């Protein structure tokens, strides 16, 4: 029987690693990730989880140990935040380039300086181009489900890439919510044991990730890009299958909410997406035809979904919890780039960009309603009055 437990997203991530029958965990503590690895330590030492837990001396080593473990043929897991993720940067590239389907929980936290322990996406979005799939969760159930799904997606031979399952620190990491945990046998049936795409094997020796000249290197990069493209279909398939089996669907690449006839589509990620659903309902009651596209998969970026939405929507408003210094919010950029073809056909929607919630500043459904109304006003006028708005910025 599936059971419902009430617990924090961090503990839920540990439950998910256990349910995925992860065999090696290598991790190093950092706020707000700590309770993930503490819970796993508890599981392993009590014998509830049959895994080896390598208590490494840094995050750089955590990721290198995960690379070693997966290369030697077992399912590996780690979790980190902010500076820990930044320290891993070099090995993130190595893991993706080595085509190892490691899954990592990223408990989002703003990068220093100055020090902050509160959430934004400056940590994970800085790792955008490392070749990792990136999923963003809106609640604790989604954290559990996405970790299980991520192993299935990443280990698919058409993908063989690692994934980050991101959730905002404190907002989710330390907030208890009810979560349905399916039966272990059913999870085992959904997620069979890890079958490596390649493995270090003394009976079939080969040299992995040696020096590759310009004659060959590009093809390896091309294959990663192809794998990313392949993963789009697989993410949708796996989410569908998971929903059919366990009753939860999170929307595949993009969680679309009341978008069918929406003239204005709000675009955001994570818990701001959960909050925005309330805003959409309220705005609808007031007569605004507003919808929400909550991006679950930031990499691969679901440009096709936005092209489809642009068939009906007149405007998109991106609400970003991170800024790319010297440019703009990430979602804002990605949507504009995705919709470029419409620019050519001469029928482009308006697109506006709001920066909100940076460094953990609270963003409520009321804020999102105000952002939506401002955007609606611009849509009516047919003109974006301010290209980038820093929401609730002090004077």
């Amino acid at each position, binding site marked *: 029987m599936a059971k419902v437990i009430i617990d924090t997203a961090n503990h839920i991530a540990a439950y998910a690693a256990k349910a995925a029958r992860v065999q090696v965990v290598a991790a190093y503590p950092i706020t707000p990730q700590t309770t993930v690895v503490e819970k796993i330590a508890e599981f392993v030492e009590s014998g509830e989880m049959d895994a080896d837990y390598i208590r490494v001396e840094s995050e*750089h*080593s955590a990721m290198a140990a995960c690379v*070693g*473990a997966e290369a030697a043929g077992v399912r590996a897991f780690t979790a980190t935040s902010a500076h820990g993720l930044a320290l891993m940067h070099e090995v993130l590239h190595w893991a993706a380039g080595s085509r190892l389907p490691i899954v990592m929980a990223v408990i989002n936290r703003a990068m220093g300086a100055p020090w902050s322990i509160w959430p934004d996406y400056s940590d994970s979005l800085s790792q955008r181009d490392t070749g990792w799939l990136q999923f963003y969760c809106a609640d604790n159930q989604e954290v559990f489900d996405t970790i299980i799904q991520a192993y299935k997606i990443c280990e698919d031979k058409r993908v063989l890439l690692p994934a980050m399952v991101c959730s905002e620190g404190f907002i989710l990491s330390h907030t208890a919510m009810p979560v349905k945990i399916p039966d272990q046998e059913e999870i085992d049936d959904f997620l069979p044991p890890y079958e490596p795409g390649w493995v*270090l094997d003394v009976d079939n020796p*080969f*040299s992995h990730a*040696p*020096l590759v000249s310009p004659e060959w290197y590009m093809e390896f990069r091309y294959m990663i890009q192809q794998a990313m493209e392949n993963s789009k279909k697989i993410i949708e398939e796996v989410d569908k299958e998971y929903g059919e089996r366990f009753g939860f669907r999170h929307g595949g690449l993009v969680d679309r909410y009341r978008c069918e006839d929406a003239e204005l589509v709000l675009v955001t990620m994570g818990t701001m997406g959960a909050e925005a659903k309330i805003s959409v309902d309220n705005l609808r009651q007031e007569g605004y035809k507003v919808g929400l596209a909550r991006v679950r998969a930031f990499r691969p970026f679901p440009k096709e979904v936005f092209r489809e939405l642009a068939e009906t929507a007149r405007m998109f408003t991106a609400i970003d919890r991170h800024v790319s210094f010297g440019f703009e919010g990430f979602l804002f950029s990605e949507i504009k780039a995705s919709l470029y073809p419409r620019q050519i056909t001469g029928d482009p929607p308006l697109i506006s960009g709001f920066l909100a919630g940076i460094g953990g500043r609270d963003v409520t459904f009321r804020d999102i309603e105000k952002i939506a109304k401002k955007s609606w006003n611009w849509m009516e006028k047919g003109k974006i009055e301010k290209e980038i708005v820093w929401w609730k910025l002090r004077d």
Partner: protein
Amino acid sequence: MVTIKELPKEEYLLKGNPACAGCGSAISLRLLFKALGSRIIMIVPACCTTVIQGPYPYAAFNVPMLNIVFEATGAAASGVVAALKRRGIKDVTVIGWAGDGGTVDIGLQALSGAAERGTDFIYICYDNEAYGNTGMQRSGATPFGAWTTTTPTGKREHKKNMPLIMAAHGIPYVATAIPSYPLDFIRKLRKAKEIKGTKYIHILSPCPVGWRFPHNKTIEIGRLAVQTGMWALFEIENGKFKLNPPSSGLLNKEKRKPVREYLKLQGRFRHLTDQDIMEIQRWVDETWENYKKMISC
């Protein structure tokens, strides 16, 4: 006792590999494979061995190889060891094989962590006393006075004593070796293989290119390193320090050749003043006094 005759004929370091002629590291690799055979997994960071193993799509090592980022050998090995344990594979030896830079400098943290956790593997540092891969820059293992591309007038600091740093971790086995004394190296490898836990072997690896000597002098230079006491062959087994032949016969200063005989054959020391040479001699003698104390306690 190991004898040359009983070594396997199989070669796991294949012909045509791109090591420089006379490379001490390539000789050590060949010996490593002969000593341990093919049931090993190698973990190699960025170093000369990245080049020696051959560029894709060629592979010069006939054993499974995991290439990893420069500073992460110890950590990646921990992952491999844990995975083999999970899979119930008991007859495969995990080898970390890294240069001096990847060991005494940038890789020290990951190695120290792996040793502190008692990771069951053999870590081998092949020490050519500089960053060979990137063109011979100074490392923490470069000896006093040596020319490197980042110490063009000679390094002003002495070599870091890495084997003793590893011994301070309390691991069961630490040893030094040099390809000029192959049987000693092979014996140590085979012994390490039978011990559980972290084993550390530090090879002084003469490098004709970086040290600037003719490539047919590798073995001779290595012998001189030992005979002058610039390099000592020893083992530290469960904390017990023991000099091995021929170093064991050199405790008395009179038995050691003057360091000048080792230094004068290498272009990297050409610019040394008499005072520099005296400083190196002083350092060698002091190091040996320390070994004496380690034997008596």
